[in-house]
């Protein structure tokens, strides 16, 4: 059998080539259905994919932000940190106490920046150096620009308070270890260790900060509580469950869940539209291919009965239409892929100015091409085997004497 399969393949191929006008008509008909479908899906996948990528890549979409202030201690923060859905959590000090004035030698203005407590694994500082002692910080892009500093530079930080009726100012030398990406923080800000943020808060409360040599009242209260925290979940899909969890604890939060939901439902709806079109297109094509194969069996009745007469078995005759429609599926898919590649190249070129370098409007992954091939081959082989079954029922003698 595998042996004579080779002969059927040869004969089917020769017949297919001999009727090249008919064959190429069906190849083009298939490409005309499949090509636009691939372009449509490429657009859907490219546009929605970029939107999703943006959502996923932008850590701010994974942020769960408490509204108002609460009282959270280190133990509670530690417990939250151990939850698998939480990627990063660090406590915040009081916002009003978390500012610092910065001055550099290369710029002549003093700017007041927000202090953002950070730690290793901060999603806003991925691929950046993270400060790990009291006298290090990472500047936001706009702050670094205004201070005209680069990583490695030293700057001067100062805090002021009114203490026992007079105004005091302390200074601290700070090293800029890195500059954050513009997208991470749009305003003037400094990512510092939690300790520096705590030190600033302590100083403003009139407490002493011995490591920095700042004088004041000795702090007697050992269990510090924080009014808020910075929390990032592992993925955008964890935002909703974590918000719910916090909601159950009575913590009201704000997230970008609504944005995420919009893109997700857009993805779902467009997928639905796409599959509707794809199914209609494929079914339509299968019918037209099926009808032609069915008619082919009539047209080639004599040739098929000749094959039966020279000794081909029933099972081998079935392969005849099946192989030929597989050829159509294969070449049609190839043509459609070429059409797709050409059109997507043009589309992406047209949108180049609006896109980041890695983004594309029209995009398919290798597996999408394979899925298209599988679907096409599948439906072609299915319709062809119906025709093949019909071909196999031809009696060897019945086609012989038609003139």
């Amino acid at each position, binding site marked *: 059998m595998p042996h004579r399969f080779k002969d059927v393949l040869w004969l089917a191929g020769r017949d297919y080539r001999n009727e090249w006008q008919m064959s190429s008509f069906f190849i083009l008909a298939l490409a005309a259905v499949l090509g636009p479908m691939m372009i449509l899906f490429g657009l859907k996948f490219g546009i929605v994919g970029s939107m999703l990528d943006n959502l996923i890549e932008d850590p701010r979409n994974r942020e769960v932000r408490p509204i108002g202030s609460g009282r959270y201690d280190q133990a509670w923060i530690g417990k939250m940190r151990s939850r698998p859905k939480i990627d990063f959590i660090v406590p915040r000090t009081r916002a009003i106490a978390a500012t610092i004035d910065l001055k550099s030698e290369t710029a002549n203005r003093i700017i007041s920046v927000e202090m953002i407590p950070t730690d290793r694994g901060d999603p806003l500082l991925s691929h950046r150096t993270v400060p790990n002692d009291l006298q290090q910080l990472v500047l936001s892009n706009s702050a670094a620009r205004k201070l005209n500093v680069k990583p490695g530079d030293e700057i001067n930080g100062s805090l002021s308070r009114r203490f026992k009726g007079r105004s005091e100012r302390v200074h601290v030398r700070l090293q800029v270890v890195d500059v954050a990406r513009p997208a991470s923080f749009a305003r003037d800000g400094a990512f510092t260790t939690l300790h520096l943020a705590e030190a600033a808060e302590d100083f403003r409360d009139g407490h002493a900060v011995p490591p920095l040599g700042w004088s004041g009242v000795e702090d007697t209260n050992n269990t510090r509580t924080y009014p808020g925290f910075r929390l990032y979940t592992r993925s955008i899909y964890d935002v909703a469950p974590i918000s719910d969890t916090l909601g159950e604890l009575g913590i009201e939060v704000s997230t970008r869940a609504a944005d995420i939901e919009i893109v997700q439902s857009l993805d779902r709806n467009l997928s639905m539209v796409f599959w509707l079109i794809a199914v209609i297109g494929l079914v339509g094509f299968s019918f037209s291919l099926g009808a032609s194969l069915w008619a082919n069996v009539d047209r080639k009745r004599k040739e098929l009965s000749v094959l039966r007469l*020279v000794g081909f*078995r029933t099972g081998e005759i079935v392969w005849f239409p099946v192989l030929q429609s597989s050829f159509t599926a294969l070449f049609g898919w190839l043509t459609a892929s070429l059409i797709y590649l050409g059109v997507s190249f043009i589309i992406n070129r047209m949108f180049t100015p609006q896109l980041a370098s890695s983004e594309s409007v029209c995009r398919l992954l290798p597996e999408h091409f394979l899925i298209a091939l599988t679907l096409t081959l599948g439906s072609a082989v299915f319709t062809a085997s119906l025709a093949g079954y019909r071909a196999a029922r031809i009696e060897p003698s019945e086609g012989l004497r038609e003139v």
Partner: protein
Amino acid sequence: MTSPITTLDTQARPSLTGERILIYHLRDVIKTREAEGAAFRLRVPSLQIALGEKIALIGESGCGKSTLLDMLSMTLRPTEIGSFRFRPKRGADPVDISALWRKKQLDQLGDLRRLRIGYVMQTGGLLPYLTVRENINLSRRLLDIEDDGLVDELAGDLDIRRHLDKHPHMLSVGERQRVAIGRALAHRPAIVIADEPTASLDPIAAERIMSLFIELVDELHITVILASHAWRHINRLGLRHLEHHTHREEDGSMTETVVSG
């Protein structure tokens, strides 16, 4: 088989090689067909065809020639079978064709056709997408027979060598029939069945091709069964006539042909 008695046997016709081997041995084989109230029946009470024989089946169209040929080429299932044995080779066991039909072992019948039978149709039956050479070689290809020069030799004998690389549609009807004869013989089958192979040709070409056909069959020692309605030149080729009688009911409701020989 070297016994002097068999060589003296005058009853068996082609007895040059000794024992008379029956390639076909049929008893009480009947095919009935019914169409629009008119029934047709072909009855074969007894038929014996020996290996190496050349048989002519001559009669008007509609007398059942084709039905008999189809049954002999195992492409048409008889309605009733007393017994039907096929012995394609000296020394081989006879194959029980009636059992294969009964058990619906169509693949075995196909295998027998591929290996043992060559068939020449009334009109070509060539595959339009193959060249003349590939058409002639088809029967050999299916059996994996190495090229031993026979295809070229046949093409030479049939005077179609210059057409070997053309497609059938470029050939005249007569040339196509020559190709069909080539294909039927190329795999050296045990038997060639030809159904009016020259019916679509003018009488002169028909006679020439028919003589050529019989010559080649003789040369390759192949048994032949030939159906034709033109008996004049067939007579000169030394073929054995197969007796058959057709009689119709007066009201036309029933036609029966009886073949025996």
